[in-house]
C-alpha cells in the first residue's frame, strides 16, 4: 500500500481496532486471550469497535469464545493460499484489511509468528511497528495521534518507553505481560468473511512439511531443569546433571558458555537467545546469572543455585542456594535422592 492509500485508509474515520489472533486449527491459547483482553481495553478507551482477524483453517471455530473478550466483529480470512502458514500471504491479507477498513491500530501477539506476520504487514504498508509491548496507552481515536507504550529490550531485562506515531499503529504484545481478563459483559460477535486477493501458489513462501520432534522431556515443558554453565568444566561433567535430571523426570539445560564450548547442543540453552522456561524448579550449577541467562529462567517457580561464589547473581537472586564445588555437591545429591527413592 502506498502513502496515498494509507492516508485515505487512515482518514476514513478509524473507528475500529483489530487484533490478529493466532490459533491452532481453531484453538486459541492463553497468549491469544491476553491479546483480546488488551484489545478490548484499548478499544474501549478509544471508543472504537474491537475486531478480530483470524486467518486460516479453523478460523470460524476460533471465534466462538470471542464474545467473552468484548469482540464486536470477527473477520474470518480463508483462502487456499492460507491453508498452511505463509507469512507473506498472511501479511497480504492483513494489509488488505487495513486498506479496506483503516483501523486505528492492529495488535498481534509477540510470539515468533505474531512478530513475523506483523513485521511483514509493516513492510507492506510502510507503517512503523513496535514489538513486544508490555504497556500500551492509546492516544485519541483521531488516527494520527501518537501512542505511548513500553516495550521489551534485551529479552525483558530492560524496558523502553516509546512513542508510536502512525495512521494505523502496529504493535505486538509481549506474552504474559497482560492479564487475559474477560469483558464485563459477553456480547455477540458479528462474523464477517474476508476473501483476500492473493497471487498464484508459487509466489508465497509457506510451510511445505512438518517434522515432529523426537519425544522425551522437552526443555520448555519439563517440571525440573538441571542446568550447567562454565563451572561444569567439560562435556563429561554433564553426566552428573543428566543423572539428577533423570531421577527427577526433568531435562538438562545449559548456559551459552556450555553451548559455545561445544559441551551441549544449543537446543539445551536457556536464555535470551536460547529457550525461555518456567519449570517448578530450576537447578543452576556453575552458572553466574548474566542478564541474558536470567531472562530465560526467571519465571521458574523456584531457583536453586549451586555455586562456589556466594555473591554470584544467580545465588543472590535465586530462592535457594548451596555454596561450594558442584563436582562434590552433585554426586552427594544424586546419592541421597537415589537412596530415598529406593527406600520409599
Amino acid at each position, binding site marked *: 500500500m502506498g502513502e496515498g492509500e494509507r492516508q485515505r485508509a487512515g482518514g476514513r474515520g478509524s473507528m475500529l481496532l483489530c487484533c490478529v489472533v493466532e490459533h491452532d486449527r481453531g484453538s486459541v491459547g492463553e497468549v491469544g486471550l491476553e491479546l483480546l483482553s488488551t484489545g478490548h481495553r484499548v478499544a474501549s478507551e478509544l471508543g472504537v469497535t474491537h475486531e478480530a482477524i483470524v486467518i486460516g483453517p479453523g478460523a470460524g471455530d476460533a471465534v466462538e469464545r470471542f464474545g467473552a473478550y468484548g469482540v464486536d466483529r470477527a473477520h474470518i480470512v480463508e483462502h487456499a493460499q492460507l491453508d498452511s502458514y505463509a507469512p507473506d500471504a498472511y501479511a497480504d491479507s492483513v494489509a488488505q484489511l487495513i486498506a479496506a477498513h483503516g483501523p486505528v491500530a492492529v495488535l498481534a501477539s509477540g510470539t515468533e509468528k505474531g512478530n513475523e506476520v506483523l513485521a511483514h504487514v509493516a513492510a507492506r504498508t510502510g507503517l512503523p511497528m513496535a514489538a513486544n509491548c508490555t504497556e500500551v496507552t492509546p492516544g485519541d481515536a483521531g488516527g494520527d495521534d501518537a501512542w505511548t507504550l513500553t516495550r521489551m529490550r534485551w529479552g525483558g531485562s530492560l524496558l523502553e518507553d516509546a512513542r508510536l506515531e502512525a495512521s494505523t499503529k502496529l504493535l505486538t504484545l509481549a506474552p504474559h505481560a497482560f492479564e487475559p481478563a474477560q469483558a464485563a459483559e459477553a456480547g455477540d460477535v458479528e462474523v464477517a468473511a474476508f476473501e483476500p486477493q492473493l497471487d498464484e501458489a508459487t509466489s508465497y513462501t509457506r510451510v511445505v512439511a512438518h517434522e515432529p520432534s523426537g519425544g522425551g522431556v522437552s526443555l520448555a515443558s519439563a517440571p525440573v531443569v538441571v542446568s550447567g554453565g562454565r563451572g561444569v568444566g567439560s562435556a563429561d561433567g554433564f553426566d552428573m546433571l543428566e543423572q539428577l535430571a533423570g531421577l527427577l523426570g526433568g531435562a538438562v539445560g545449559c548456559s551459552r558458555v556450555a553451548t559455545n564450548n561445544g559441551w551441549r547442543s544449543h537446543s539445551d540453552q536457556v536464555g535470551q537467545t536460547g529457550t525461555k522456561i518456567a519449570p517448578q524448579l530450576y537447578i543452576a550449577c556453575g552458572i553466574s546469572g548474566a542478564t541474558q541467562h536470567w531472562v530465560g529462567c526467571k519465571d521458574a517457580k523456584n531457583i*536453586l543455585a549451586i555455586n562456589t561464589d556466594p555473591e554470584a547473581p544467580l545465588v543472590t537472586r535465586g530462592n535457594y542456594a*548451596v555454596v561450594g564445588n558442584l563436582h*562434590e555437591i552433585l554426586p552427594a545429591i544424586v546419592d*541421597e535422592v537415589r537412596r530415598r527413592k529406593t527406600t520409599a
Partner: protein
Amino acid sequence: MNVLVCIKRVPAPGARINLTDDEQHIDTRHLGFTMSPHDECAVEEAVRMVTEHGGSSTVLSLGPPEADEQVRQAISMGVDHGVLLEIDDIDWEPQATASAITEAITTLTSEGTTFDLVLFGNESPDAGNYQVGIRVAYALGLPIVSGIKGIEFVDGGGVRVRRQVDDGFELYELTLPAAVAVKEGLNLPRYPAIKGRMRAKKASVRTFTPDAGPGGLRKLRLRQPREQKTETTVLGHGPEAATAVADLLEELGVM
C-alpha cells in the same frame, strides 16, 4: 553464490544493565562489545556456504564508527568484504535502519555484485525490533522466512530452511535470490584463527554515510523492570547440603 550478512554491534552486559544518567543509553563504559549471537551464526553460515559453493561473502553493519570492530570480527571469521554504514548514534529506529541498509544493498547491486542470499539475525538483542530483515527483504523483492535454524541447498537453485516450533520443525522452501533471518543454534560459530585476525586488521572496509530516513517509533527513555526481591535460603555448604536439598525436592513434590 554471493552472500550478504547484516550484523549489529551490541554491548555485552553482565549481571545488570546500567543506564546513562539521561536514561537514553546503556552505560557501556565498562563493557565489551560483540555482534548479536544470531548474526554471528549468520556470518558462520555465509562463510561455510562460500567455502562449499564458491562465490563471495560480504558483511554489512549500520552503526557508530566503532562498529568497524564487528565488521572486522566477521572478516576474521572468513568473510571476504566489509561494508560499514556509519552513523553518529548508537543505532537508528528500525524503519530508518532498514531504508539505509536497503539503499546500500541497491548501490552494491548496481555496481555489479548481485546477492543470491541475504542473511539477517532473527532479532537484535538490544532493540529486539523483529523487523529490520523483513523490511529490507520486502523492499528488495526477496522472499524471507524468520526463526531459521537450518539451511540446505536443494536442486534447482533454491534453499530448504528449518524452523523450530513447539512440536518439531517446519520446513519452508525458497527460490533464490532470497533472504533468511536466522537464530542461534543454526551452527556453532568458529573462533577466528590468527590468520583470519591478521587479514581482518589489514582488510579495507568500505564506508557509506547514510541519511536518516523517517520512522515512526521514537524512544523516550530506557528503564529497569521492577523486580521482586527474593530472600535466598542458603541450604548449606558443600556436599553436606545434600540432605537439605533432598528435603527441598520432596517438599516441592518433584522427587
